[in-house]
């Protein structure tokens, strides 16, 4: 077709015009390609991360809501009422296993397990002391005797620290959901009872491993336990030995546990959910793991022998072991999780409780820099396209005016307007395609390094922001959204209850529960592949759109032109 030949010839002959248009489209194509790649990378990373994510959720008491309620009550009624409310709140705080199991019947739940956590002291054996907890202890409000008792261990810290960085943390470290440990005396050890093997996530995920003996049997109510290598080494314990634990509220109340296994932990870094981080018991090395049934037997027994006293705040306190039950709901995917809350409410979950997923929050958090970047890339793309389109339109307005005479001649020679328009469109398309291919190729080649560099910037920026905040606060800020909202709620509770003793006490208590060092979020910091067929198609679409904008200008002009006017008004 001569029209295309003509178009091609014109783009080659009018080098100046071609190069000018070409450079503009090249720049647009390059930036669009990078921006699209970033968006695609974010999308891919999101999908991939979500694919590999098994989502678990917990139901916890909406403490701040209750606190507010209590606050409202205390404003209108006398203070004994508010104390009663507070006590009631403390008692009600933990859902019973039966309740948890009820909600586990929701369709969306694929699995459910639970743990029981309690804090104890031990007779004859010493808790492993890492510098991690020593450092924090100096500034913490944790009991002095603890640090006294374990200070001799701190000479051994270097080895302890490196090896104890990580033990199987309780799968759900959220102690705030339960009233247990926060009201009684904190022990040196944490005992966690698991309802099922799959509740022991550190083992199922492979970060913890039995190195000697075997895991306690799940159904036996016999007091079997497993302990960490560090604790075993430190106290020269081995499989088959027994340890005697005692109730921190009543040192005479003791229980004997049989060690069936010793485990090691391979994960390094600070474990998530180090919520009880202020004391020795928070050290993963000092966690004693048992079956739920076995631990429940102990706490039940403790309950039965407990004595009750009233503290200076007028709140009744039992000497029983503080036990905290936490249920974990497992979901196949994010959608099931989204449905869960509604289903649980339908099954009777009261509004005092909230459903939250730490996995999902961490997942969302890990994507934040990439998503921020993706959002910026999106705006950038729009700006580029708008500016690009304007430039191309203006350029084409000038170009078609400059070529008015040529258009007139072609039409005078009998070339139909449609064909003239087609020739002009072809010329724009040829330039656009060439520039798009070069710009797109350059964009594709540099999109991965550019994205990673930008991503690194973004991550540094968010890290700096949180570091600044930590400096300003003098303590770590919650890194995770649910955590940070928790701490802000706590702060709010503090503020609003400045003249309410009981509430403010509990506020600071729960703040003391904040770990000394939050988990550093594992941001997605690198992408490997950004340009795929979708990006190519999108890029092509963008270029065609730009070419269309330019063509539209040319075509409108051509349709308006009449050869007689053009040719007779020349010179």
């Amino acid at each position, binding site marked *: 077709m*001569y029209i295309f030949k003509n178009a091609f*010839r014109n783009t080659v002959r009018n080098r100046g015009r071609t190069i000018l248009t070409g450079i503009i489209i090249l720049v647009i194509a390059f930036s669009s390609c990078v921006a699209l790649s970033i968006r695609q990378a974010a999308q891919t990373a999101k999908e991939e991360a979500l694919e590999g994510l098994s989502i678990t959720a917990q139901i916890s008491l909406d403490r701040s809501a209750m606190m507010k309620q209590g606050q409202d009550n205390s404003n209108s009624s006398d203070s004994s009422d508010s104390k009663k409310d507070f006590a009631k709140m403390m008692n009600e705080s933990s859902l019973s296993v039966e309740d948890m199991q009820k909600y586990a019947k929701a369709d969306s739940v694929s699995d459910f397990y639970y743990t029981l956590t309690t804090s104890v002291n031990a007779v004859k054996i010493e808790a492993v002391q890492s510098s991690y907890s020593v450092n924090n202890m100096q500034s913490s409000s944790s009991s002095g005797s603890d640090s006294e008792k374990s200070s001799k261990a701190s000479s051994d810290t270097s080895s302890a620290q490196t090896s104890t960085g990580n033990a199987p943390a309780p799968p759900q470290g959220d102690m705030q959901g339960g009233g247990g440990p926060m009201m009684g005396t904190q022990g040196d050890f944490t005992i966690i009872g698991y309802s099922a093997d799959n509740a022991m996530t550190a083992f199922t995920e492979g970060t913890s491993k039995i190195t000697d003996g075997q895991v306690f049997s799940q159904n036996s109510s016999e007091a079997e336990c497993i302990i960490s290598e560090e604790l075993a080494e430190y106290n020269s314990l081995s499989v088959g030995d027994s340890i005697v634990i005692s109730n921190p509220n009543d040192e005479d109340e003791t229980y004997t546990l049989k060690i069936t296994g010793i485990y090691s932990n391979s994960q390094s870094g600070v474990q998530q959910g180090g919520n009880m981080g202020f004391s020795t018991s928070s050290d993963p090395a000092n966690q004693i793991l048992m079956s739920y049934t076995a631990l429940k037997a102990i706490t039940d027994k403790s309950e039965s022998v407990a004595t009750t006293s009233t503290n200076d705040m007028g709140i009744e306190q039992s000497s029983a072991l503080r036990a905290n039950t936490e249920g974990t709901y497992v979901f196949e995917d994010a959608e099931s999780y989204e449905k869960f809350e509604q289903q649980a409410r339908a099954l009777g979950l009261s509004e005092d409780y909230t459903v939250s997923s730490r996995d999902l929050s961490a997942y969302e958090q890990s994507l934040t820099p990439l998503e921020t970047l993706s959002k910026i890339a999106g705006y950038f793309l729009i700006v580029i396209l708008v500016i690009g389109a304007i430039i191309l339109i203006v350029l084409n307005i000038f170009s078609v005016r400059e070529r008015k005479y040529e258009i007139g001649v072609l*039409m*005078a020679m*009998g070339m139909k307007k449609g064909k003239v328009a087609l020739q002009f469109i072809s010329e724009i398309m040829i330039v656009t395609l060439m520039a798009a291919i070069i710009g797109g190729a350059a964009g594709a080649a540099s999109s991965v390094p550019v994205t990673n560099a930008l991503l690194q910037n973004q991550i540094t920026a968010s890290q700096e922001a949180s570091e600044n905040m930590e400096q300003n606060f003098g303590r770590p800020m919650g890194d995770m959204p649910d955590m940070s909202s928790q701490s802000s709620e706590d702060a709010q509770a503090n503020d609003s209850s400045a003249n309410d003793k009981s509430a403010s006490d509990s506020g600071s208590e729960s703040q003391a529960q904040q770990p000394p060092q939050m988990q550093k979020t594992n941001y997605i910091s690198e992408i490997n592949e950004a340009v795929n067929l979708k990006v190519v198609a999108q890029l092509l679409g963008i270029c065609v759109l730009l070419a269309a904008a330019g063509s539209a200008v040319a075509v409108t002009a051509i349709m308006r032109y009449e050869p007689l006017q053009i040719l007779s008004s020349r010179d």
Partner: protein
Amino acid sequence: MAVIKLENVYFGYEKDKDVLSDINYEFDEGKIYAIVGRSGAGKTTLLSLLSGLASPTRGNIYFQDEDISKVNKYDYRSKMVGVVFQNFNLINNLTAAENIALSMDIAGSKEPSTAKKEKAYRLLESVNIPREESDRRVLKLSGGQQQRVAIARALSHDPQVILADEPTGNLDEQTQEEILQILKRLAEDGKCVIVVTHSPEVAKRADEIYRL
């Protein structure tokens, strides 16, 4: 037989200002017509009407007994008439040969491009443009050369009617003579040749003179 017939043709660029009024004329095949008149008389305007670039405000123009207001103007221009414009109207960034080949393309020539090129060279040679000049962009040719390229282009699609606006205006006597010979040959071949001219020399060679 009349190839083109004008019947009570009126035309004005602006309303109520007729440049041409009540023109009645017949152009036969095999003849050379000279259209003469003072500058601004409307000679170029008449050619525009004949070439289908403009339509009469009143009256009718017939091409081979068919009202040209009813035929496709583009087809009419590209196939039926060959126009040599007063200011040539060549495509500046194409070579002489390409301008001619393009004209053949627009006329719908199905010949292979080598054949078209060959034909273009021959046409250009017939108006005294040698091959080496044929491959230069027309912008780089002299006014006289451009004029001859325009004439060659008007003949490229072998039209029934040749309309030429001052085709010899920029030419020396010898070239003018050569052009007149070409036009004469075309008339002998049965074409209708209509030439606008100020030159009495050219008018003298015409079979008929129409004075505006």
